[in-house]
């Protein structure tokens, strides 16, 4: 064949291919891939031919399958499904998840593809619903749950009786609107770190913190009495020990934006305490995450409120530390409690393999064996009670004792308005532009305006 003829043939083939692609069914027909020969219940205005087209193939394979033996290992029946996609936002657990996915594939013939995806991208793709390239399953920190559920991106996870095997707080973190919207995997909370060289025992009240820290600063041994990496998440135990809180619970047990506790006496007292620390020169006025950690790990600061993420840097720096429960507002009082962060597995409601994804989550992941192996792969406190108790290293036990009363961060959408307003209230208090009470009042006003506008 000469060149012209080759070109002609190629053009014809390309045109035919385009024809076939153009006529063989719509993009929108999401569940048409392995539909058995039966009524397609899609309600979009697809023309009759697309349903007939896709119904043709599976019916054939179903017929041929049943002529053979019913029980055949790995026989996937009418049309096979793609692997489930599972996105995680941090890579610590990818290996163990791949292992569990491989076992699931051996048992049921459908595997799981695990990918590490940045959290913001993960959220965006899930929020875009069917338009996005979202995964079937995702592991997220629970505070992202609210926005996703409100946009219809998350399907409920029904684990039946296994609910009682989990830590109640972990289940609480993934409850939304009274339904369990995910399978918890691990929990985390901050702890009260103290330098064992500078201080003999952890202080039990915040006044003691001030005294001990103040003495060290006055004596020149320390530059700062206590490290507050920020004025919100990490300082929460301070606020709660005085009786402060952000959102209260409604009648159905979930957090509600109708009960904002940010102007109550406890919050004001705590804010006044922070201001007094700054005024007396016991903490730097400029609240900086990095600076507070640097001061602790160089031994120039006896205390810091931070979480497991700081362990590596403290160990590398060699600073002798221990983790203790948080101090209370007064002697004999209740210690402050931190926010609890729960990471768990959620199911994408827009997935076209929804039931399969749910099955993977509830049958494979939500079992003691899998939870134990996940814990062994990456030692984060497990959400499964019996595995949680397996944690035997001092640091984890320290965090666990500090977080025994930890409350999950509210995941309602209104929580997103809180952070900026809260930080600003803290900053304005420290610089002295507003009194603690006024600053918190303004913060609540801002939060309520934003709730009203949204």
């Amino acid at each position: 064949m000469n060149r012209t003829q080759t070109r002609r043939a190629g053009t014809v083939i390309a045109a035919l291919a385009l024809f076939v692609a153009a006529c063989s069914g719509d993009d929108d027909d999401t569940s048409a891939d392995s539909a058995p020969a039966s009524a397609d219940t899609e309600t979009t205005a697809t023309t009759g031919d697309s349903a007939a087209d896709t119904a043709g193939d599976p019916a054939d394979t179903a017929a041929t399958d049943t002529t053979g033996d019913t029980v055949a290992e790995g026989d996937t029946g009418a049309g096979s499904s793609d692997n489930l996609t599972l996105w995680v936002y941090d890579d610590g657990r990818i290996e163990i998840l791949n292992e569990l996915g491989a076992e699931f594939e051996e048992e049921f013939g459908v595997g799981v593809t695990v990918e590490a995806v940045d959290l913001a991208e993960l959220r965006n793709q899930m929020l875009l619903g069917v338009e996005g390239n979202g995964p079937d399953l995702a592991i997220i920190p629970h505070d992202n749950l609210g926005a996703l559920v409100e946009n219809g991106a998350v399907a409920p996870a029904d684990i039946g009786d296994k609910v009682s095997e989990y830590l109640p707080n972990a289940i609480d973190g993934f409850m939304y609107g009274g339904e369990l919207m995910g399978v918890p995997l691990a929990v985390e909370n901050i702890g009260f770190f103290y330098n064992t060289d500078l201080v003999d025992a952890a202080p039990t009240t915040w006044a003691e913190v001030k005294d001990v820290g103040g003495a060290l600063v006055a004596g020149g041994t320390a530059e700062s009495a206590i490290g507050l990496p920020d004025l919100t998440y990490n300082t929460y135990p301070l606020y709660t020990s005085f009786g402060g809180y952000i959102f209260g619970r409604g009648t159905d047990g979930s957090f509600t934006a109708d009960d904002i506790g940010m102007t109550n006496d406890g919050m004001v007292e705590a804010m006044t305490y922070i201001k007094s620390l700054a005024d007396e020169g016991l903490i730097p006025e400029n609240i900086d995450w990095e600076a507070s950690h640097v001061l602790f790990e160089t031994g120039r600061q006896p205390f810091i409120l931070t979480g497991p993420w700081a362990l590596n840097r403290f160990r590398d720096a060699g600073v002798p530390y221990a983790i203790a429960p948080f101090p209370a507002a007064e002697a004999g009082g209740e210690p402050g409690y931190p926010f609890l962060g729960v990471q768990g597995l959620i199911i994408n409601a827009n997935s076209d393999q929804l039931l399969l994804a749910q099955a993977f989550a509830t049958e494979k992941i939500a079992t003691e064996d899998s939870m134990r192996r996940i814990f062994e792969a990456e030692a984060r406190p497990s959400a499964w009670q019996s595995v949680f108790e397996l944690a035997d290293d001092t640091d984890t036990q320290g965090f666990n004792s500090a977080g025994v009363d930890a409350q999950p961060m509210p995941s309602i959408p209104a929580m997103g308005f809180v952070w900026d307003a809260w930080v600003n209230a803290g900053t304005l208090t420290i610089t002295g532009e507003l009194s603690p009470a006024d600053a918190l009042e303004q913060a609540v006003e801002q939060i309520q305006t934003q709730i009203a506008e949204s």
Partner: protein
Amino acid sequence: MLTKDQRVPTSLYVRTALITVAFAVGALWLVRALLLDGLVMLASVVSAVTIFLLLVYLRRRYSAMRWMAIGVVFAALFGVYPILFNIYIGFTNMGNGHLFSKEQSIERLESEQYLPEGSSTFEWKGYQSADGYAIVLIDADPPRFVSESGADETVELDPNGEPPATIDDYRVMAPNQVLPIIDSLADLDFGDPDAPVRIQSFRAAAASQQRYRYDADLDAVIDLSNGVPHQAKEGSWVGPDGGELVPGFISVVGADNFDRFLSNDNLRTPLLRVVVWNFAFAFFSVALSFLVGLGVSMLFDDLPGRRIIRALLIVPYPIPVLVSVLIWRSMLNPDLGTIGEFLAAIFGSSPQFFLDPMWTRIALIVVNIYLSYPYFYVVTSGALRVIPEEQYDAAEVDGAGPWQRFRYITFPQLTVIVMPLLIASFSFNFNNFNLVYIFNNGNPPMADTIIPVGQTDILISFIYKLAFVTSGASDYGLGAAISVALFVVVGSITWFQIRATRALEAR
């Protein structure tokens, strides 16, 4: 399609015809798919592009455009269309809870099922036969066998409590056969067509029913469980008690977004301060960077080792802005930073670079000078050579001193050459979101505002906070509206500046 008075070889004709038809069919299919999803704007742009391409490539008269055609198409699709789309979004309520088109929202709602009162869920096992599928409801009372084809019979469990392995033509399926197809099984109705049983999950099946149905006459979605209609209103399905269904859809809300931020008193006070600071920031950044760049090029250009000096001085330019700003943040920390400690050593205490509004602003401009002066150094370095040497010699002869030479010869001619770049740099710095956001997120905060705003916030970061941090996170409609307004502002400034430049050049 081809003019008649042309003798075209048959092969060419056939090939062209095939490609054209294939292209047209492909485009038609794409437009149809877009329209079905309710994406009208994109569909119209794609149609316009298709017609344009067909005209250009098939009509002799427009053949001159052929070389430009692809470029124009890309510019239209990736340049013009996003701008038009952005303007369109400003008139809609796209955002949290309103991300789908109406058709997609209805589709989602109509696929929802619910369990009517009094019904319960059952454990099930799957069966298949040549005719289709069936399930046995194991813990129903009595255990039932329901099939796709409408059969509904009682079965007896064997002594272990398991259903029989075969029932009529149906054979039981093992879990590893059921799971891979479970989602397609979930679409099937088993048993009596009037009260079908559907699979809910791996463990449960129940007689669930469709929860919502769209009524086109009422333009409402009816909740079939209680008959309550939810009216389509501005992108939400609103029931009589005000409750809204999830998900909503995108709908045009007219000038609502513009109204929200233009007439909202709460926004106006901070807005004014933000605008003033924005102009000051852009102006001083550009002016001072230009002067520093000019000074550096005048000072160092005549020295030996010019190349090495130039290489060192350009260093801030290729380093990513993110890295530079973060390093400056650390250096400026009043307690632990290099510069902070240095100033404290000299003056006793360091200014509060992140808490005091004035010092934060000064710090921002200094960092911006650091980031921008290499650009002006390079530009003025070249521009200086353009000025003829004779003018300087003539001025010396006339007795002009260095300052006078600079003021009457160098500066005027330099500005004429560099003015377009200064204008462009002004526009860039007017919207310099990166620097402001990374440095201190616009903080320190303002003390009397109804929404969180910072003292160093510029318009664009203010908009970001309005549209994406407050207001339900991701209020694309509001963000788009404000960005349109911002475009008008920056566009007008730029237009006036260019006009002023023309007047300058004419002189």
